[in-house]
């Protein structure tokens, strides 16, 4: 299994603070993605970083990737109460004739207190 591990499992911060979540994985990857899940709902894609990239930004999101350490981090700046959700990293492995395996971690539950 190449399931990733997020760290911490749960994070509670005040509105306006930054939130950092980390993800480690086990095997080589083609890209790494972060998703968000509101309680009881499906997951929504946030951002993707390719294996040859080191950092990527999208709005208040910043993702880093260190393939030598097999780890990634997601930073949410100036957090809002609406950012309260679970966040998952997912690793993608592409092989063969179109085979695309997308494997998720266990998630970080973020609570942003107004």
């Amino acid at each position, binding site marked *: 299994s190449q399931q990733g591990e997020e760290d911490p499992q749960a994070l509670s911060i005040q509105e306006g603070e930054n939130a950092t979540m980390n993800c480690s994985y086990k095997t080589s990857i083609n890209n790494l993605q972060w998703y968000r899940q509101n309680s009881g709902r499906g997951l929504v894609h946030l951002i993707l970083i390719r294996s040859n990239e080191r950092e990527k930004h999208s709005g208040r999101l910043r993702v880093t990737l260190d393939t030598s350490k097999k780890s990634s981090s997601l930073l949410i700046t100036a957090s809002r109460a609406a950012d309260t959700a679970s966040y998952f990293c997912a690793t993608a492995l592409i092989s063969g004739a*179109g085979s695309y395996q997308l494997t998720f971690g*266990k998630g970080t539950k973020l609570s942003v207190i107004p």
Partner: protein
Amino acid sequence: DVKVTQSSRYLVKRTGEKVFLECVQDMDHENMFWYRQDPGLGLRLIYFSYDVKMKEKGDIPEGYSVSREKKERFSLILESASTNQTSMYLCASRLGTEAFFGQGTRLTVV
């Protein structure tokens, strides 16, 4: 908008029943996935498919099978449901860089 539709939001089945979970996507995506989500375990990949009639095992395929007869539909089958298969099941499809998820089916096996 991409739409991934799972046939049931909630389902209650008896132990030993054969259970079908259906997933349909409307964007001609080639890749489709089935996951189960359990507290503290995150999403675990059961099976995935990258084309019609093509399927690959994920991390936890035991007790499950899948069917992809048409590109838009990916079915997850529990041959003989057991209580340890009580879970939230999530279907996803992908074209390009991101996966799109259905709303999930919460299956309870009693």
